[in-house]
């Protein structure tokens, strides 16, 4: 029951992009471990994401 609720909550977070930072860090650990720089912190990551996301056609009629 608790497990089901937790998975539902995870699904909601994934669908809304609430967990974007966690996903980014996981991706970074997997792909860029060897790089010299550290992963972006939460604030820098979010700022960067927002800038990137709005450079194109995002919404429709």
């Amino acid at each position, binding site marked *: 029951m608790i497990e089901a609720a937790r998975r539902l909550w995870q699904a909601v977070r994934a669908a809304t992009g*609430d967990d974007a930072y966690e996903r980014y860090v996981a991706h970074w650990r997997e792909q860029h471990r060897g790089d010299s720089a550290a992963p972006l912190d939460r604030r820098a990551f979010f700022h960067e994401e927002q800038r990137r996301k709005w450079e194109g056609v995002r*919404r429709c009629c």
Partner: protein
Amino acid sequence: MATNNEAIKQAGRLPPAVSWLGWAAVAVLAALGVAAIASHRGESIDALWFIVAAVCIYALGYRFYSAFVAAKVLTLDPTRATPAERFNDGRDFMPTNRWIVFGHHFAAIAGPGPLIGPTLAAQFGYLPGTLWILIGAVLGGCVQDFVALFCSIRRDGRSLGQMARDELGPIGGAVALIGVMAIMIILIAVLGLVVVNAMRGSPWATSTVAATIPIAILVGLYMRGVRPGRVLEATAIGVALLLLAVFGGRWIDASSTLRAWFDYDGPTLALMVILYGFAAAVLPVWLLLAPRDYLSTFMKIGTIVALAVAIVILNPAVKMPALTRFIDEPGPIFAGNVFPFVFITIACGAISGFHALISSGTTPKLLANERDARFIGYGAMIIESFVAIMAMVAACVLDPGVYFAINSPAGIVGAQAADAVATISNWGFQVSTAQMDELAREMGEATLFARTGGAPSLAVGMASIFSNAFGDTLLAVWYHFAIMFEALFILTTVDAGTRVARFMLQDMLGAVVPPLRRTSWYPSVLICSALVVAGWGYFLYFGTIDPLGGINSLWPLFGIANQMLAAIALCVATTVIVKSGKARYAWVTVLPLVWLVIVTSAAAWQKLFSPDLAIGFLSHANDLAAQVADGRLVGAAAEQAARRIFNDRLDAGLTLFFMLTVWVLVVETARVCHAALSGRRCPPSTETPHIPSRLVEDWVRD
């Protein structure tokens, strides 16, 4: 490993006989549903029939037609690595769960379009619009979205404009770019007009819509500074404040001093929307645009789900007749016969070219597996089409007399309530001033007459459906909730559209004056934003002072532009299919393309040259010019006429431009396809070579 998974999957399937019986039952139910709504004449019909017909047709279309397109025409290849896998950078390109991609894609394609178009098209009765939404989506719109998504996936996630240039040559590319720009300007103007008509003379609605701006800014500051990236927390706060604003509006409306601050006429509101649009375009996105987009997406999905549940459970009676007299005589909301104008009025929900921009934008960069293109491309459009069906139901549960009283502009039925009621009752749709006054009082409005644009009538429809479930006392609150909900995401489209058009303009002007191309250089931002806002602001402002309400001339223009964009996407798709050696299946995209070319050309021709003053831009301009020349219009009236003549000719010029664009593209497509088939020189297919997916071991994921 793969065979093992395949075996497990096989074991879970129904035996073929059971499956076929089940689908036969769905087909019978679909036929019954369509027969019920098509043959029904008389008092009223249950909304459930619309839902049954729609769901069954969508299910059949998805199960069989999209499977055919996926397997035979496009030959989706699950072993092929997608751009998301090949270019995985954890940001733009990223293999993402198919349900999440579906959600993002749907949120991006579904705007106010499918709510407004069907509401306006209900003037023909429910039947023409409903059939077009169902058939147009299954055979046209869904296919377009799906094929555009597929083409982009096979081309490293390139945009429609780039693909048009690559596959059709430079002419196709340039025409596509200018077309997108033009459609954006018209779209924003007409959407702005819908919001203005909903707020005109209504302090409650205006204060609620105005409150969405500081609420969005608050949410933006929260997500930026206080708790970066906590989308759910920020949204919860925002939604709570929005609901508070809806309730608070009643209190503002009741206070005689406060209500004066929010009580404006159309032109003043138009100027405010224009100023707002400019501010939103030059302010940083994180402050206004991004948080507004979050709020509107959550509101949109929540309200659509609530509406679907309410319609299914409450099963309201649809009171609009199947066909009205306006199928072949000029209607009050817009003029023109059912052919071709129902196909122009309902673009979003049946087939919308705008979607091709999304299908070739963010979405193709997220798909983990090419096979999911069917679910996301075809599937998301089915849901949008279903939204359009619900909008049609919500408009048609109103008494037809009430529907026409709300939506008919004063220039046609008369500015006085008594005149309007008399005209509408003369058409055979009974309505009385007492009934309209009572309705306006229930909704907390001063009047509901001549609120052209679709938002108020949809809000009345939604309010009456919702209040059936939750009691009559909240009717006014539901109404203003519906207005707020529509205004919220219309303004999101206004902001986002202005921004996109600005980027395009910067890019185009940058070819002449290089520094303008720098997207973050402030003088360039200010100049280009001002130009874009002036473009749509012009149409918006003159829409509000047009005695026929503006929607009359702008909505058909928007429909033609949107269908033109769809034609461009289908041209590109057809070329791709022919070049891939599948010419015998090219009818899959040629069929909707031919239909769109017929309806846009017919509609454009009538808007240009019809002698009927209500339809033809040029004949209307000439008539006004003759009146001025005769001295029948003098002084202020003559001045106003001069402006209207100019606007008519401007609209005519745009219509001509759209029509020529479509034909240039069609001729180019025919030329390139013919060259490809006869082995002559043509731009080669730019499909990327097959690279095996490394995610292949677990591609049987579901």
